[in-house]
């Protein structure tokens, strides 16, 4: 226990509250403390209202006022429109599909993809901040809300032999904007190109659950049958027909949005040549 005497409380400029000391020295009666419940203010609507007349003309009871201030006001819950926007996302086009959805899904395989199991919008502010900082550190300059930008960046990561980063980017974007089906489809195509059979099946299941009647499901089935023949998720076992494709591997739907225009590629080669010519001149 501390033996240091407690100093006299001081007010502004270090002067002791002489009035209070005199009052206590002359034995002033202690203040009456009523239960706080009696001082709870009546419900008041928001806005400015006329000041009611004072109940007591003698003066203001500061104790009563201070006690009233301490009681937390009962506020109604705030409904934020941001929560509704997710529900108001455009619904996928309804088509018929013969595929059956398997229910025995291993939760660890694709739990990060299912918005029903993980909603980043529901994170508390601290966790949201950690997630945002991780995204900024891992994927600088990429806005996960922009599906086109995300798909392009993922494609570039894939082209640069960083498929793991590409898949992670698409994972996180699908969590952020689960209604954006192009992100899910791009992820499926990358997994197909990586020949990741397990990943493709898990992603296809998650896609089916998230977008149950999407018009691209038949394409997913076609790719799935080519990658994992016999998988029940992709319909009856059947190989590609002769007239489907004449190459060694079925054609892909270009969900990764690879450009058909090769002009920038030619310009990049020109740039490379010009820069090296400039470097050669500078060296000499």
């Amino acid at each position, binding site marked *: 226990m501390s033996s240091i005497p407690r100093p006299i409380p001081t007010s502004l400029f270090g002067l002791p509250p002489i009035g209070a000391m005199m009052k206590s020295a002359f034995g002033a009666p202690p203040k009456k403390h009523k239960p706080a419940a009696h001082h709870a203010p009546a419900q008041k609507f928001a806005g400015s209202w006329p000041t009611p007349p004072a109940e007591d003309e003698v003066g203001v009871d500061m104790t009563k006022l201070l006690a009233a201030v301490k009681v937390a006001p009962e506020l109604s819950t705030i409904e934020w429109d941001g929560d509704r926007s997710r529900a108001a996302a455009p619904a996928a086009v309804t088509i018929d599909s013969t595929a059956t959805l398997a229910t025995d899904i291993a939760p660890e395989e694709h739990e*990060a993809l299912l918005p029903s199991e*993980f909603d*980043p919008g529901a*994170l*508390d502010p*601290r*966790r*949201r*901040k*950690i*997630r945002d*900082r*991780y995204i900024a*550190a*891992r994927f*600088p*300059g990429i806005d996960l809300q922009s599906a086109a930008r995300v798909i*392009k*960046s993922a494609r*570039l*990561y894939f*082209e*640069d032999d960083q498929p*793991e980063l590409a898949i*992670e980017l698409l*994972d*996180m974007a699908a*969590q952020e904007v689960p209604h954006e089906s192009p992100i899910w489809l791009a992820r499926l195509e990358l997994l197909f190109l990586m020949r990741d059979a397990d990943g493709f099946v898990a992603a296809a299941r998650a896609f089916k659950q998230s977008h149950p009647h999407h018009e691209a499901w038949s394409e997913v089935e076609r790719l799935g049958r080519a990658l994992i023949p016999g998988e029940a998720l992709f319909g009856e076992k059947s190989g590609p027909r002769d007239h489907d494709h004449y190459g060694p591997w079925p054609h892909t739907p270009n969900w990764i949005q690879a450009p058909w225009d090769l002009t*920038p*590629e030619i*310009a*990049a*080669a*020109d*740039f*490379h*040549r*010009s*820069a*090296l*010519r*400039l*470097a050669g001149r*500078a*060296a000499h």
Partner: protein
Amino acid sequence: MKTKSSLSLQFQRPEARADFEKARRDLKCAETSFDEQADAFLELSTQLDTGVSRAKRELLSTSLTWNEENQSLMLWIHQQHRGLLETGTKLVQSRQGDTRHLVMPQLVMHCILHWAEAVKWGAWRERDEYQPLHDLYLLAGSGRFLDTPATIMADGRGHTVTVEKLYLRALLLDRFASGSLTRQQVEIVDAWLWHWQGSLKAERAFPGGASLRADLDTNTGLREGAAKSEGPAIYVRLEPLETERRKIVREMHRGHMVPPHGCTADLRIEEHVVVLDYLRRALRPADGDAPQRAPREQQAGLRLEVWIGLSEILARGVGVGTETGRYRALQMNDPAIEQQSRQRFADAARRYLWMSDSSATGFGFEALESDAAGIEVGDLIGWRKGLGGAIILGKIMRRMPSSTSGQVFIGVQLLTENAVPMPLHQVVTFDNGMADGTYMFVPGDDDSGRHDGFVISEKTFELQATYNAHVGQDHFSLKFNRVRSRGRGWILAGFEIVPAKAPDVVMVQDLTLPNFDFTLDPIQLPEAKPDEEIALAWDRELSPRLLA
């Protein structure tokens, strides 16, 4: 000997450090019974851990380069762990292989713990003695307490571990703390290794795939592949560790720090991301029998002036932003300007490193500690290939000080041997061209240009702006679109060539515009009644007077 209550654990203060050191030396020279010495050793061991866990939070929280006080504290911690390891090993050896004493498992565990902590706090180029560590493991095996769980204090917290897990953690820490990570990053690795105790398992037979090996009869650390000798060896599989690494990525997605406590939870997320990338490379399986690195060639100490960081490379290597200290002169070819700019940076501010070896993919440098001050893993480094030659750019991958000679050994990954400074102009600027600048073009090894890039700052990349480049007679518009490599404050950004200008406006001749004439439909108004009375002024829009 001071008792537990009389020792201060504020190791930031020199007197507290001196007190602890005296207590440790007293124990070393004590001639009391084995039991008393063992108790005192375990008590000191716990006190050291408690004091260090308090001090290191402040020590690791700074992202700046450590000052001399920080360095001396780090060295002191390393020495105390070495000292306690020595004392504990002598105590264990005094039993001459008899493991029946109750305190023996605790002693062995603490010795292994101090071995690992000494490695962590003093990652010198000269590696520690591995044989005492292997001997402790073999002793625990002979005493049949390799897998016996026990609680040990580490980082101020109690951990239930076994000798085997502590041993594997020590070897992995030794492998990872080999100069490729900063102090903060090593601390993150260590925190994760504690977290991954469940996945640390030793196997007696070669499991195949990605695994590391410890030869228990040699003075070496972890090696790759199957054992080539008949001696005892154990293996640790890397696949479970990779699974744990992926779990951490998933936890990051969910906004969780792993572990949620301790000083690593306060470190920047960028450090965690660097460690995740490092471990991804470190835990992946070896590529068959292919050599892990390109063959090296000795360089016999070629002395070079180097520049650290993008701004220093641009200022000293290229001459961008060099202040002359003079008013602007009309005669731009005045030799005094050039002379002034050269004198601006005296020899005292320059850094000189000695190139010790080189390969197709990198370089090895040696430096004095004074020259290597401020050089950290992840920094960009540049130098010229001979007088007037091209600028070479590299990324610092390893930094290991020597424990005795005062030298620092630096490993550099080659980015390019032919960097080209190139001015770029932003297409859309709001500051009258002030954002324009000179950037280092890094040509790739492919003539198509698909591996080309620019070394730029992180902020420049985040701008996502379009730039005009005038290369000789050609004009290009480009935009940075991907991160190829990155380090402390810089990014090697890939780019794409975008259309240089908007499509021309099509001029239409003899344009005839449609006729916009319009007519108003007549309004049918009610007929006025002569004897109508209006009760209110607003009953009708128009009064009968106006309608008349």
